[in-house]
């Protein structure tokens, strides 16, 4: 049989009176209220609650240790073991970015540098955090493993300018990332 017939529950006479069940409802909510006040609410520990009920009160307590590995936070650029920029300014991330938050000005690596003529490097790399939607497509599309979505999420600023992450800021957030595939350096 492809269907299940569900019968209406047969109510007892006192349930038809409505009043006793009304008090049943009041009892349930009172139970929740008492557990809240005594701070024994179910699931309190799992939700990292910091007071009444299961609510986590944000700036004081944070969700950080519960963040999953795949959590997508703020995007940032990384350098490799030799402090070399991984980004080669191919601009794939700029083209795929759905809200057009990324803006790259490609450039050469200057002459005196050890890595000059090996690859290109971004002259400017801006991510507009007022536009970024944390989708992670830039990380996915990057052939050089240069851009990553970090676990940081509280990106705040007092003006729009504060939320324009330039190259310096992006490397500061991203930092050094080791153990990735190396294409162009001597560790290969």
């Amino acid at each position, binding site marked *: 049989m492809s269907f299940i017939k569900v019968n209406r529950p047969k109510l007892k006479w006192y349930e038809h009176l409505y009043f006793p069940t*009304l008090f049943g409802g009041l009892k349930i909510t009172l139970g929740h209220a008492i557990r809240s006040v005594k701070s024994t609410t179910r699931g309190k520990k799992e939700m990292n609650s910091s007071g009444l009920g299961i609510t986590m009160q944000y700036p004081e307590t944070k969700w950080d240790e519960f963040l999953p590995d795949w959590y997508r936070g703020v995007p940032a650029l990384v350098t490799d073991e030799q402090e070399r920029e991984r980004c080669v300014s191919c601009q794939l991330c700029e083209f795929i970015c759905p809200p057009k938050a990324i803006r790259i000005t490609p450039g050469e690596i200057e002459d005196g540098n050890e890595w000059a003529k090996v690859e290109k490097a971004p002259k400017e790399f801006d991510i507009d955090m007022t536009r970024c939607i944390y989708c992670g497509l830039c990380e996915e599309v990057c052939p050089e493993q240069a851009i990553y979505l970090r676990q940081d999420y509280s990106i705040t600023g007092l003006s729009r300018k504060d939320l324009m992450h330039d190259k310096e800021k992006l490397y500061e957030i991203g930092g050094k990332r080791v153990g990735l595939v190396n294409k162009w350096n001597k560790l290969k």
Partner: protein
Amino acid sequence: MDAFFIISTLIKIVVITFLLLLPMIAYSVYAERRVSAIIQDRVGPNRVGFQGLLQPIADGIKFLLKEEFTPGHVRKGFFILAPILTMAPALITVAVIPFGSDIILNTGRTLALSIAQVEIGPLFIFAIASISVYGIAIAGWASNSKYAYFGSVRSAAQMISYEIALGLSIIPVLMLFGSFNLNDMINYQAEHGWLLLPISIGHEHGVTKEGLLTWFPMLIAFIIFTVSIFAETNRMPFDLPECETELVGGYHTEYSSMKFALFFLGEYAAMIVGSAVIVTIFLGGWSLPFGLSHTEFLSSGSIWAGLIHIGCFLAKLIGFIVFFIWVRWSIPRFRYDQLMKLGWVVFFELALVNVVITAVILYFLAR
């Protein structure tokens, strides 16, 4: 009408309305938010001041500073009149509620702790409180919007189905007291124990046959009266005029800023006054339980006895307000036909039968 009467009445108006009722309205909004939060395992507003105790002030400032937007399609005069008509009756009805026992001053004068001592207490309250439904009906009509209109129509229909049960339910109580005066009712309960707790140990009456026999009819009257007050104040199982899930905001959909706040506060004022009436009629008003208010010290009319009685009244009032809030966050809204059925088929008949039962009991007791 002497100078003492005028001055004392003015002082009472200022103290009771502006220092007692308005802060109570503000803090019952706060209580509503905190109690609903702990019922739903949340925290509620706890940031403004210690444990969020300054939240009502922040809310008030927010309402005052918001844009006062009047849509172009409304009937202006009635649109402005409606919130006033909702708020004012609740503030007027508080005039007859006795907040404590009479205080005998040093000069030998008696100071009653209600603004007006009228002989028709409950009738006055019903008459004035019913005006607030005009506020809602006018708001819905003047808004010229379908949601507001539905809300006001529902409100009017709800009013006529509950006002009858409300009025009929206290007739047994009035037959027992033999008086319309709220002070007489409280004095009777101070002596014989509360209507719902007819035990008096501070007095020679003890447990009377009269009290026990009328206890059950009084309980029925209490239930009908309380449920009708819930409907009258548009509180949760009967908040069909607002009904956020169906009617956006109901009758106050088109209102903003302080005009909306007047509706909002009017609802809470009505809730507080409704609780005060229930406490006065059924739970002994300012009197202590078990006839303890009839002892020599507490009935002496000293300032201390008055303060104890005021505290007792406020404690009962706050308890009842918390009960109102608790019910709101426990019980789902009635469907419209269920509401009508409950009003016309159940409570109306039950109240009538209750009148007859009480009359028979009182007839045999009087013989």
